[in-house]
């Protein structure tokens, strides 16, 4: 028995391994995401105020050109969902880059836990904290702009939302491993992935407006089909503007969720080895 283990036993501390350690790591990494973000009140304000400003601008554009009322609802929903995309971009994908910059990444790799569990913790914590913000944006947006929701199936709505989140954060975990190799350019790539994704995924308009192949290509981003399905389920005119049927979109989202989670696990292992071999773990090129 190693000295460290004897010390743990003497102090009555149980040393977790395997699945228990995995879960412990997930919870430990999720904790600061949920608690820490709520403690920083200014962050909460800006996370809600900035999307609300964008939502208001697009709502007034639709009003200026005489769009039907449901389009205002589309914008409010899109604005709420930007919170998730921004969270995935800046707090998932580029997180390992930030950790590298602040010197934590080496500690993560050295610690006897799974990097996958750390990413999963980040995803769960981020998802929970961001859901609260998205909810506030939806409530405020609906209140300010008098949006009417006509929910046709709560069960399908819940299924679509959960599948979208799993697939989206799975994608974020996959990107995180890719960002492990990046330095200064990480910030720029995250910055670049905002407006083009808002456009391609139809954050502010129905994705059906695009050519079939463009919409199909954009469906690789889980929010594209997720928002399309949710719009069909909560707005009166939604079904007429849907890109594909809701059951089909649920099926594709399930496939994407599995694909991204498996892909994240594989890529993370590969990239971690590559980053260690190339000496990128502790590299900091500002």
């Amino acid at each position, binding site marked *: 028995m190693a000295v460290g283990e004897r010390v743990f036993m003497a102090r009555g501390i149980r040393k977790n391994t395997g699945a228990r350690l995995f879960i412990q790591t997930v919870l430990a990494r999720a904790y600061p995401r949920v608690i820490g973000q709520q403690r*920083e009140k*200014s*962050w909460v304000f*800006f996370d809600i*105020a*900035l999307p609300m*400003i*964008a939502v*208001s*601008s*697009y709502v*007034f*554009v*639709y*009003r*200026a*050109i*005489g*769009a039907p009322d449901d*389009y205002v609802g589309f914008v409010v929903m899109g604005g709420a969902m930007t919170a998730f995309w921004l969270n995935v971009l800046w707090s998932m994908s580029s997180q390992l880059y930030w950790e590298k910059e*602040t010197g934590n990444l080496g500690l993560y790799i050295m610690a006897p836990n799974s990097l996958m569990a750390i990413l999963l913790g980040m995803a769960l914590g981020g998802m929970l904290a961001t859901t609260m913000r998205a909810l506030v944006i939806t409530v405020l947006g609906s209140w300010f702009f008098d949006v009417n929701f006509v929910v046709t199936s709560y069960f399908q709505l819940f299924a679509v939302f959960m599948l979208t989140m799993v697939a989206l954060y799975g994608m974020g975990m996959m990107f995180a491993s890719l960002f492990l190799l990046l330095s*200064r*350019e990480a910030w*720029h790539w995250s*910055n*670049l992935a*905002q*407006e*083009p994704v*808002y*456009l391609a995924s139809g*954050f*502010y*308009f*129905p994705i059906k*407006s*695009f050519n079939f192949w463009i919409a199909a290509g954009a469906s690789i981003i889980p929010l594209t089909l997720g928002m399309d399905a949710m719009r069909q389920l909560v707005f009166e005119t939604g079904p007429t503007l849907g890109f594909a049927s809701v059951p089909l979109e649920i099926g594709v989202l399930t496939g994407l969720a599995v694909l991204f989670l498996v892909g994240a696990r594989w890529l993370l292992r590969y990239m971690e080895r590559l980053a260690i071999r190339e000496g990128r773990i502790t590299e900091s090129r*500002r």
Partner: protein
Amino acid sequence: MAASETIANAGRPVARFWHSFRTAAWLGWQIESNWTDLLVFAIYSIIKPLASSAILVVMYAIITGGNFESPVFPYIYLGNAFYQYVGAIMAGISWAVIEDREHYRTLKYIYVAPLNIPSYLLGRGIARFLTGTISVAVVVLTGVLFLKVPVDPALVNWPLFLVSLLIGVIMLAMMGLILAGITLLIANHVWFLGEGVAGALYLFSGAIFPLEVLPAWLRPVGFAMPITYWLELIRRSLVGQVAEAFPTLAGFSSGELLAILAGMTVLFGTASIFIFRRCDHLARERGMIDMTTNY
């Protein structure tokens, strides 16, 4: 441009201002562009503004069935295109404080160097002005070539355009300096400041919709913003007959609008000098010049 030049400039404020500005502009350009090769940088600089404009184009096309000949379309399109200068210059100058203090951690060295700090920050905004100009040009050109935006070089009022653009850029730089001063006094999450102000101005300045669409109680906010008058002048100089179709500022002649814009620029310019000086003083007193938070 070496130590000898810096020492020689020590007693000459104008030379020192210019020297700081020039050096900061060069540094800003390096920071903005040298993280990748020129081709990737060019693509990066163009994709984001084009995508941002395309969102509005698609929204407009869906609702109007692609009626790009309506005067509303050039109003929205050009307003959005030129609004990029606001984010680039105003937010860019305040961003220099965040980068130098939090990221590169060099702000304290810049303060002890023989530099004029406001001119240094204004110089850092130049790089963003240059990339912003490329973006604006590409977006406007795309609109003219593919979306029937009626900008005819032969009909453009070039003197009005150039004078408005120049005053507007100075006005945005002065507003950027105010934001930079406030940024010096805030430690956490300061990056939201530039974004927040740029976003709010986007909403209230009538950049992408006429001010009449706003609720009546919010319109005065738009009328108090110099950007509202600047964008109107830019539209009038590029597509006069289209811009005049909207009632918002129809009661003002272009000369009157130019006078309002110039007056507001002087006002903001004067305010920026005093506000930055005060913020700078407070930041030094509170020990915030080298404060880092790792956020």
